[in-house]
């Protein structure tokens, strides 16, 4: 699965953001955008490869170029950090919401 970020947008359905994996400029622009979305309170929901399973990213690791996804360790019950690489992950960003 190649990486894509889909942002739910009011008038456009969704904005599909893809990146050239070879481009350094694209990488920096993507990282800035993802960090801005997280700061603005968006929920970024990342999909496990070839699966219906999703998890919410709680941060972004620039060095690893990956979403930070907390996971519960089944054996110990503790929460540990796992990473989903930006360039191979399908993610959907949902803005802050109002209850109806």
């Amino acid at each position, binding site marked *: 699965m190649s990486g894509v970020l889909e942002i739910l*947008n009011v008038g456009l359905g969704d904005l599909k953001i893809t990146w050239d994996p070879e481009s350094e400029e694209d990488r920096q622009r993507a990282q800035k955008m993802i960090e801005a979305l997280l700061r603005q309170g968006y929920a970024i929901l990342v999909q496990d490869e070839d699966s219906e399973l999703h998890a919410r990213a709680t941060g972004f690791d620039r060095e690893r170029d990956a979403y930070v996804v907390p996971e519960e360790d089944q054996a110990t019950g503790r929460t540990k950090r796992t990473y989903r690489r930006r360039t191979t992950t399908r993610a959907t960003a949902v803005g802050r919401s*109002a209850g109806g």
Partner: protein
Amino acid sequence: MATAEAETGITWAQLTLALQQLAIERGHYHGYPTPVDGLRMELAAGFPYPGYAEIGMPDATFVCTNRDVDETAGIRNYWFSKRLRRGVWIYMEQGRIRHLIEPKADYAIRFEQLFNTLRAGLAWRVDAEIRAQQKLRDLVGEDRFGRYLCTGAIMERSRRSSLVYVFRRLLPTIVLRSTDESVRVLACLCLHPLGYYTGTHAGCMVPTDDLIAHLLLMRADEHMLWRRCNQHPAWLPQAGI
């Protein structure tokens, strides 16, 4: 509405698209909702322009004399009565506590919500709804998407909590606890990314995007879904049952 388009030469679809282009230029990727005459918007906390929700609303200014001002007047409480199937107001007037039972029954409230939701439909672009449906098909597969097209609903059991969610187009999500002995409605969850039009079931986003938000939040972070939603009991008109 048709008159407004004829006067300005701008269609609602063009207005919506222009707003999104402006929003993206400013780094507001969720976009800006389209105001609809007479329908108030309730926008999410943190929306960049606080006065935006007032666009399209009539001026609320009124004039009163100092002869008719009652200093004690005020609303003390309001609830929707399950027994009476009507809203109940408790208020103060002339220093006394009074009550008012709304003449409008619950089916009238439901009809109003339906009618106002039709009005809010002006705000949505058809191509945005089609794109959202394509995304939904990728998320749930061909079979379930086909049933969604025909019925407007998708059911899914949470892998974490085992609760059953009935995601409905333009209506709150029904949450069921299903066991071998019984099926019980726990709550009806209402949530709209960015905002919604009050007195309707319409969100600022196209209907299928609202549903996608519910579905993905349930899959990824069920606690967050419940935290962010308004939780309505099944018998309230707002539950949409």
